[in-house]
């Protein structure tokens, strides 16, 4: 009797968790495909993934729940974010559809697909849930999994190594640059530098900037922009205007920044002098 009551209570608790997280995860998933900013998409995906981690835990899969948090959300998604950063953190996507009828067709296909599946599931008579008590009994969930991995699925497990090597090799092939000329020594570098026009280091970016973006050029003493302060890689990448520029050209924006800053600094100086006067 008590078992049934406990199961019922468990059921209720699970229902609550399910409905809360199901709504949250669907909303996050929808948001993920609808927001313009790539970073937001990635973060919303993280929300879905974390919700799923909770579901795993509820479904008697504690090990997977942790793996989901640590590996999937923690490592894989971070890799995504990393690439997003490289490609451009603020890159947004124009949501105007260019292929005629694509959205409508996608919606129709999606609705048809999900409707069919749910209709099918509705007609399916699923067996009663057995639960994993027995399976997890001998040594717990992790040991149960280990038993399967190292016996029944050992071949797939071993073959996965080929997958990982391929991934590493592929990343090397596409990202690693072979050195064609020998690496210049410290001495050669410093000689070259002395011989060049500029002996001093390049100006750092973002001087006097209101934010710490690496793509805001530094200002020279006369208030003009120093192109040298921004890495050519970043400068080249940015075809359009940076959204922090409020729609202005970099030069104009930099001038505005400079004016604002000067005003701020001057006021600060004023304040400081007043404070000093007071102290006196």
């Amino acid at each position, binding site marked *: 009797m008590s078992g049934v009551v406990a199961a019922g209570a468990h059921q209720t608790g699970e229902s609550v968790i399910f409905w809360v997280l199901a709504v949250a995860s669907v909303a996050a998933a929808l948001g993920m495909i609808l927001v313009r900013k790539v970073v937001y998409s990635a973060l919303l995906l993280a929300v879905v993934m974390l919700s799923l981690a909770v579901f795993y835990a509820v479904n008697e899969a504690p090990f997977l729940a942790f793996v989901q948090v640590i590996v999937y959300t923690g490592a894989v998604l971070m890799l995504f974010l990393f690439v997003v950063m490289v490609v451009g953190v603020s890159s947004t996507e124009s949501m105007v559809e260019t292929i005629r009828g694509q959205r409508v067709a996608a919606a129709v296909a999606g609705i048809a697909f999900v409707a069919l599946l749910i209709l099918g599931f509705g007609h399916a008579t699923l067996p009663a849930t057995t639960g994993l008590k027995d399976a997890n009994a001998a040594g717990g969930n992790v040991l149960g999994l280990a038993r399967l991995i190292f016996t029944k699925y050992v071949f797939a497990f071993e073959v*996965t190594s*080929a997958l990982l090597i391929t991934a590493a090799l592929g990343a090397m092939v596409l990202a690693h640059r072979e050195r064609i000329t020998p690496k210049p020594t410290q001495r050669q570098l410093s000689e070259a530098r002395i011989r060049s026009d500029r002996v001093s280091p390049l100006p750092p970016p973002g001087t006097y900037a209101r934010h710490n973006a690496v793509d805001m050029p530094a200002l020279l003493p006369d208030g003009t922009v120093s192109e040298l302060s921004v890495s050519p890689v970043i400068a080249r990448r940015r075809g359009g205007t940076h959204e922090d520029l409020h729609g202005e050209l970099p030069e104009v924006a930099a001038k505005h920044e400079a004016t604002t800053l000067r005003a701020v600094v001057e006021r600060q100086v004023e304040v400081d002098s007043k404070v000093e006067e007071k102290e006196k």
Partner: protein
Amino acid sequence: MTPGIIAAADIPAPHLEYGRLAPILIVLGAASVGVLIEAFAPREYRYWAQVQVALLGLVGAFAWTIALSMSGTPHHVAAMGAIGIDGPTLFIQGTILVLALLSLLLVAERRHEASPFTAQASSVPGSAEERESLVAGITQTEVFPLLLFAVGGMLIFPAANDLLTMFVALEVLSLPLYLLCGLARRRRLLSQEAAVKYFLLGAFSSAFFLYGTALLYGYAGSVRLSDISAAISKQAGGEPLLLAGVALLSVGLLFKMGAVPFHVWKPDVYQGAPTAITALMASCTLVSAVGGILRVFYVGFETLRWDWRPMMWAVAILTMLVGAIVAITQTDVKRMLAYSSVAHGGFLLTGVIATNKAGLSGTLFYLAAYGFTTVGAFAVITMVRDAGGEAGHLSRWAGLGKREPLLAGTFALFLLAFAGIPLTSGFTGKFAVFQAAVAGGATPLVIVGVLSSAIAAFFYVRVIVLMFFSDPAADGPAVVFSPTSTAAVAVGALVTVVLGVIPGPALHLAQSAANQLFVR
């Protein structure tokens, strides 16, 4: 006693039949050796070391496959039930290995240019860096281990006895191919585009495959094909799960073989990828994918055939017709062959639909026959070159028959084999699958098939007419002969003719392989 000790004693050491798995292990092992060479060998030795390792690996695996099929030991599942090594599988694996050897000849090509692959994949196309690396003459020798990994995956895929192993194998064969597609030496933007398209669509399709697997697991409580088959015959309830699972699994499988409407990647990827890799995909990947389909549908869903057959009928008919019809207006020779490969996928599906022994043996024979012909045809394409690399546009092929009668004649032979003219392997193969389909009660399908090959003959003949009956352009492409690609062409042509004139032994081989049926 801590729980850990109990558990360790509790898990029995898995039993792996290394003898049976050896072909797969040899290929994957050779790939790993290739990675080590890449890491430690000096640059100047790498190419030769890689070629030798790859050759040894493939030849060794092939020899072992032959030995396995000759040994006559009763076939059963291996590797704790994950892999089924049986007659059809050995036939498919042997075919893949030989075709991979031929493709390797094209991959290892050095006479046309330093390599068919880009000097440095990481350099931006058209940049100074790229130019420097081209001048320095370095080559991306990583392609050899990648190719071996892909071949390893292809060997596992049709042998996989459960859907999880199949999924892992699918990824093992796909990931290296995604990478290899993007490594062309010329027209790198196209090549990279092909890679990204193949990758995105491939990942998309494997998600469907996986969801199908999930539903089948939900239905049967296991992903082993024999368990699913047993569950089907028990009428366990929850059929919607089963049917939706079969449907979604088919999406993943049909995508890999390029059946309509999941063929969309094929023309773009075949055209953009380096031709050596296109040859590999058109032959080995197709063989592997169809092998996987055969196993899934013959072992797992055979008892369900009244449900999936109508769907397969529709797919096969569409595939045959769309492939043949769209090929007519193609102007790029690789793209045309891609559509032709789509159409051939449809012919192969008629053999799958037959679901009888003759269908199995016919499909096996067709796979081998088509694989050799297609590798040969792509090898010819690598040899017809002008200043910009391969001369892909059909107009450049005009009058080739007058300048290089032998090569153009061989290409014509391949085209006639694609068209299914008697005394070529294409005819025997088509006949084998069609007669099996007729015996399996799919006569209308065969009529569509014959109709489609009549349409297809049109564009094959168009190319022949172009090569032989029109005048060559003044600045037409030159034909560059090199030992390796010439060898690939010669083998392809020889097999095409032999399998057409004396197909007996090969048919017999396919038949005795099919007599085994798949182990469960």
